[in-house]
């Protein structure tokens, strides 16, 4: 039956078409794991208590020194070698405080029998390549050879902490200081200057037009509302939108005001709109801003990994 054949062929094509992107996502490279905590074990090697002890050790370091060290265990890094995989993971996670960039990534590829300490640029002075190599050779390698992964990692983290403690890094902010900056809330590449310039000229041009069409009071209100709406749509920040709208409104009212007897109305309208802007800004935005952090581990978002560190095997 040709129809059945065609149906089968179509299904096959569909399957291939939809399966192919999944199979070859990212050019076949290993996907970067989700950063869920300071210790990520994809191999199931560490026992729960070992993992908890290591996490405590790393959290203590972050609280006292501010530097973020993350331990990642994967079965293999194929098809990449461990150095480029570590660099890719580091630059995706960007561990390290936002304004300092002090992050270290310890990666163990268990089945490849390879490990790497990837150091962010800010810590290359505290942990130079030679020091990283000594930590690998002295602390990790002998223990890994005896399958004591938890012990090797513990010693490595202890030595790393000692080295980081010797570096004059800025003191960590209060407890919540580093956690507030999650990378998701960072700016999305939007150019604020462009918007500001655009709105500035837009108001100067459109303001007089609106006034002449709708009269000074309604024109100003429309102008303020329009600019505020536009600013809100683009920046999705009520404070910015309220501020921009208020500025536009005041500009339209005050600038080029030819009407003589509207000073009383002007003052009252301005105050009302100002109250609205402040009210909405205070109420809605601050709540939304702080609710995105659940208090868990998050990357500082400042680490820049330039290929520093050392690799080793066992």
């Amino acid at each position: 039956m040709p129809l059945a054949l065609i149906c089968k062929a179509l299904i096959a094509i569909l399957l291939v078409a939809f399966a192919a992107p999944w199979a070859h996502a990212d050019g076949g490279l290993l996907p970067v794991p989700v950063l869920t905590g300071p210790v990520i074990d994809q191999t199931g090697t560490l026992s729960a208590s070992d993992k908890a002890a290591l996490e405590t050790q790393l959290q203590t370091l972050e609280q006292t020194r501010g530097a973020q060290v993350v331990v990642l265990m994967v079965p293999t890094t194929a098809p990449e070698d461990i150095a480029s995989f570590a660099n890719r993971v580091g630059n995706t996670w960007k561990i390290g405080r936002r304004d300092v960039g002090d992050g270290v990534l310890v990666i163990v590829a268990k089945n490849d029998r390879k490990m790497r300490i990837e150091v962010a640029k800010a810590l290359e002075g505290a942990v130079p390549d030679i020091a990283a190599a000594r930590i690998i050779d002295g602390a990790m390698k002998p223990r890994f050879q005896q399958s004591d992964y938890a012990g090797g990692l513990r010693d490595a983290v202890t030595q790393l902490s000692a080295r980081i403690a010797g570096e004059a890094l800025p003191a960590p902010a209060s407890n919540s200081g580093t956690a507030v900056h999650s990378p998701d809330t960072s700016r999305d590449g939007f150019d604020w200057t462009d918007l500001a310039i655009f709105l500035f000229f837009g108001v100067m041009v459109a303001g007089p037009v609106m006034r002449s069409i709708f009269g000074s009071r309604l024109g100003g209100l429309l102008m303020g509302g329009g600019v505020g709406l536009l600013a809100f749509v683009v920046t999705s920040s009520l404070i910015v939108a309220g501020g921009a709208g208020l500025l536009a409104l005041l500009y339209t009212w005050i600038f080029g005001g030819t009407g003589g007897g509207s000073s009383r109305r002007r003052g009252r309208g301005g105050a009302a709109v100002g109250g609205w802007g402040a009210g909405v800004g205070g109420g809605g935005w601050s709540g939304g801003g702080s609710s995105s952090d659940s208090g868990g581990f998050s990357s500082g978002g400042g680490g820049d990994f330039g290929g520093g560190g050392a690799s080793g095997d066992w």
Partner: protein
Amino acid sequence: MIQRIFALLTALLALSALTGCGYNDFQRLDEQSKAAWSEVLNQYQRRADLVPNIVATVKGEANFEQETLTRVVEARAKATSIQVTPETLNNPEAFNKFQQAQGELSGALSRLMVVSERYPTLQANQGFRDLRVTLEGTENRITVARNRYIQTVQEYNVLARSFPTNLTAIAFSYAPKPSFTVANEAQISAPPTVDFSASKPKP
């Protein structure tokens, strides 16, 4: 009044056209690629500075293969003799020459490291092991810096060649920039010959 509005409108149009045609993007990416290029040079310099130390350490090893050592020294001299400036970026010929010289140094150094495996006393030397780690780290940094340069240049070149912005590129003469290529493409794509019959030279 109408005239004033008209003038402002023109100013607004000119401004939005300027940002819309990618002029600012060209500025940003041009500077970014220059910075990325400087980082590449920086890391190559770091490697060139490392070579004398490695050579001095290896020389201490009696009867080390002289030919390998000489090749490293010569390749370094050649690589450092090439004057590189940010303008090299706009000169594909000089760029290729620079890349080739650095490639030769890479080859000579990796050959040196392979040969050094045959000398147990050298392998046991802590100073040499440290230098080896440093060289390895430097090679990694070079890879990262080159990678970043390639990405920036790609972004820049796409902007310089795709439609509305290529007019800006022509008007302000922003030519596409050269990027790194593999120097010995034919050599790499040929399968390696494996020969177990030849006897290893004794150290």
